[in-house]
């Protein structure tokens, strides 16, 4: 089926819906989403959204900008970080005006809480910068934005999965191909502008906070079309995932006063971050947890430590951390009021992704040359405001600030540009992939290959990395790629074929994993979340630059682009 719109947004999380809010009623726009919009993973974000409102104590956007730059270990593009910190304030006020039910101060203004790496006066100590709604801030962002979409009568294509990106011979984006999951029918979306807002790819790792649906769909289709990805080696592990399950326990637990303790009961962050302690950035805390475990100070000598909230008032735990309390009671059968909680780092957030400028335009090289008509925002994009390590709450800030900027730029773009014709046989590639998978009858199982992929990535590409480990992972991925050509699926029907969906998603995961490993192997230094045991120091002389990885007929090719440095020269990073 053929559709024509001015703009098509792929993904209905925070970034996609924020962009839709800018476009609805002003041009023809459709949102394509693999899930019902309210199922998007923005809804799983918990602790808060930062903006230097200064409602509780003195704060300034430039402090927020500095924390973002330092948190990202100076790989952050500082022009983008300035936009993030400045526009966060206005974006949060806009959310409030749209009805977002923020927690309040007694005088009726928005309350703010502490979060990791957010400091006053360039690192002196923690500052209360994160606005929040209990511990379901992301849920309320998703709901508020979906509510606006209903109000604005946005056109949705729910449960449509994106399969391919359409580019003309001259490299102009003209639309996407998507699968209607309910019917198995392919749909062509012909548009002047496409925004990819498909979220992350945490499912490349075994232990992750990410939804099962987070398989890097948008990132992979861009990569397959020969466009570069940026900084794929930087993947964040959140310190506090529920042991073995990976379910996220919010950094707000520590923002409200929670403490990490090892098997000896020690507050071990005193050793690694004497100023910010448990509220050091996530890369620092996750590494510290693993170091404790390695040195035999995990709980009972095992591979976990405790998140201890037992000294906090019951009321704080049950009201400000209500969902976290529910998770712990449901999945562990423990009560955070009286029991310490077993946690381990969990794969959480991709700093890297599709390279964009500050208006969401997808760019292809070191000069930031844009692809006309193609945009990306949210976790699938790399602006880069998170650099080598994202600060807590900045993902939600990223969504609303850059989702909004992308939407506004798209509006201008579709008003000034004509619709380009589609390439010949636009759905050829997508159709071929679907037909191949539906007829596949090999003896390899999607679930088995996926599990081996996740194991390999967890073992050798997670918090600690080495050249040997990365080469081992690369070889394993090559083997899995080969076996993927010999899979067989059980369901050959057209109606709601989730067997087919999972097979397509595995292809996307393989693409993402290969890109991560190639970039990580090349980067011979340690910076932010990318820690090479064989190169434990940050190396600004050789590596203060972004990685670009492109798939060519000869394999993966790496190139680099400079980091934008405006206000803050790189310094040693201590907390």
């Amino acid at each position, binding site marked *: 089926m053929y559709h024509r719109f001015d703009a098509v947004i792929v993904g209905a999380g925070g970034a996609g819906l924020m962009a839709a809010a800018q476009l609805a009623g002003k041009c023809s726009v459709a949102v394509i989403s693999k899930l019902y919009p309210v199922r998007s993973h923005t809804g*799983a974000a918990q602790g808060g959204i930062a903006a230097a409102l200064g409602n509780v104590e003195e704060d300034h956007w430039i402090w927020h900008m500095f924390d973002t730059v330092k948190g990202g270990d100076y790989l952050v593009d500082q022009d983008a970080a300035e936009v993030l910190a400045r526009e966060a304030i206005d974006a949060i006020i806009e959310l409030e005006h*749209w009805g977002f039910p923020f927690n309040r101060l007694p005088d*009726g203004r928005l309350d703010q809480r502490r979060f990791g790496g957010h400091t006053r006066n360039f690192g002196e100590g923690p500052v209360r910068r994160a606005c929040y709604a209990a511990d379901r801030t992301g*849920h309320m962002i998703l709901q508020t934005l979906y509510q606006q979409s209903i109000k604005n009568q946005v056109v949705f294509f729910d449960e449509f999965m994106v399969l391919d990106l359409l580019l003309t011979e001259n490299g102009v984006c003209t639309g996407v191909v998507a699968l209607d999951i309910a019917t198995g029918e392919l749909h062509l979306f012909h548009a002047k502008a496409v925004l990819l807002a498909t979220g992350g790819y945490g499912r490349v790792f075994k232990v992750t906070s990410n*939804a099962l649906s987070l398989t890097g769909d948008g990132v992979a289709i861009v990569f397959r079309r020969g466009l570069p990805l940026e900084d794929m080696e930087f993947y964040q592990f959140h310190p506090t995932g529920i042991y073995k399950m990976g379910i996220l326990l919010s950094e707000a637990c520590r923002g409200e006063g929670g403490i990490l303790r090892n098997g000896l009961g020690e507050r071990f962050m005193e050793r690694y971050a004497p100023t910010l302690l448990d509220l050091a950035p996530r890369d620092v805390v996750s590494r510290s947890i693993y170091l404790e475990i390695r040195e035999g100070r995990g709980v009972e000598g095992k591979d976990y430590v405790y998140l201890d909230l037992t000294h906090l008032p019951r009321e704080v735990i049950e009201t400000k951390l209500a969902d976290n309390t529910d998770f712990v009671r449901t999945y562990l059968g423990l009560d955070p009021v009286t029991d310490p909680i077993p946690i381990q780092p969990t794969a959480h957030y991709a700093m890297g992704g599709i390279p964009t400028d500050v208006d969401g335009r997808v760019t292809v090289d070191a000069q930031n040359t844009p692809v006309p008509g193609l945009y990306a925002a949210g976790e699938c994009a790399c602006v880069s405001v998170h650099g080598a390590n994202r600060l807590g709450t900045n993902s939600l800030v990223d969504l609303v600030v850059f989702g909004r900027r992308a939407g506004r730029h798209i509006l201008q773009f579709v008003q000034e540009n004509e619709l380009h014709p589609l390439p010949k046989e636009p759905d050829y590639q997508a159709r071929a992939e679907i037909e191949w998978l539906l007829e596949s009858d090999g003896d390899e*199982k999607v679930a088995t290959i996926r599990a081996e992929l996740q194991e390999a990535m967890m073992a050798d590409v997670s918090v600690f990395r080495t050249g040997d480990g990365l080469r081992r992972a690369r070889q394993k991925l090559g083997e899995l790629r080969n076996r993927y050509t010999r899979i067989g699926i059980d369901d050959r029907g057209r109606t709601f*074929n989730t067997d087919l969906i*999972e097979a397509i998603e595995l292809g996307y995961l393989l693409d993402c994993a290969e890109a991560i490993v190639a970039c990580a192997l090349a980067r011979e230094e340690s910076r932010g979340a990318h820690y090479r045991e064989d190169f434990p120091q940050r190396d600004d002389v050789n590596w203060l630059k972004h990685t670009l990885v492109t798939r060519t007929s000869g394999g993966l090719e790496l190139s680099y682009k400079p980091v934008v440095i405006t206000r803050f020269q790189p310094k040693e990073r201590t907390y």
Partner: protein
Amino acid sequence: MQVTLRIQRFNPDTDTKPYYREYAVEVEPTDRVLDALNQVKWYQDGSLTYRRSCAHGICGSDAMRINGRNRLACKVLIKELGSKITVEPLLGFRVIKDLVVDLEPFFDQYRTVMPYLINDEPPPARERLQTPEERELIEDTSKCILCACCTAACPIFWTTEWLGPAAIVNGHRFLFDSRDRATEERLAVLNQRFGVWRCRTIFNCTEACPRGIQVTRAIEQVKRRILFEQG
């Protein structure tokens, strides 16, 4: 431990009516029902079809009937259920395939309550003020994840056309928001023949809500508000 999953199956392309199929799976007592379903789908029968995403009770995708009760499959552990587990699609909606139901009518009802803040006054430069006490009035109902567990548990919904608990919860969320200015229009929607008065306070909705929302209480608060505003 080994458990037997008895799952209602239906593929519209090949079946004329639903049937049950049993699967034996090896699971831990602390596993979720969703883990058991995944075991079946990934290693025994890839054609088994259900929705799922976040796997920890936040996205609302995997609402289904588990041993007769509406639950999220990712929020109920095997040890609660014993070794024989029956899994069926939500009642009251058309089955698309296996455990997947057509939720369009559910979202249609949601849209009828105008689920968005209405306030045409020019906004201030900063946030609108709202006291913690005013905010507390919408704490419970703003937790809704639109999973449909409550609406699909309501016997009135099974037999009669009406808004259903989830839509009313979302109506409540804005009706009781001190920043909203559309009280009259909201009450008109909730007061109509298909509105709150069809509720018979059976409490199935409250029992079914995986977010612990006091759904029946919210419906009663809306009823009272209508009476007070009319009086």
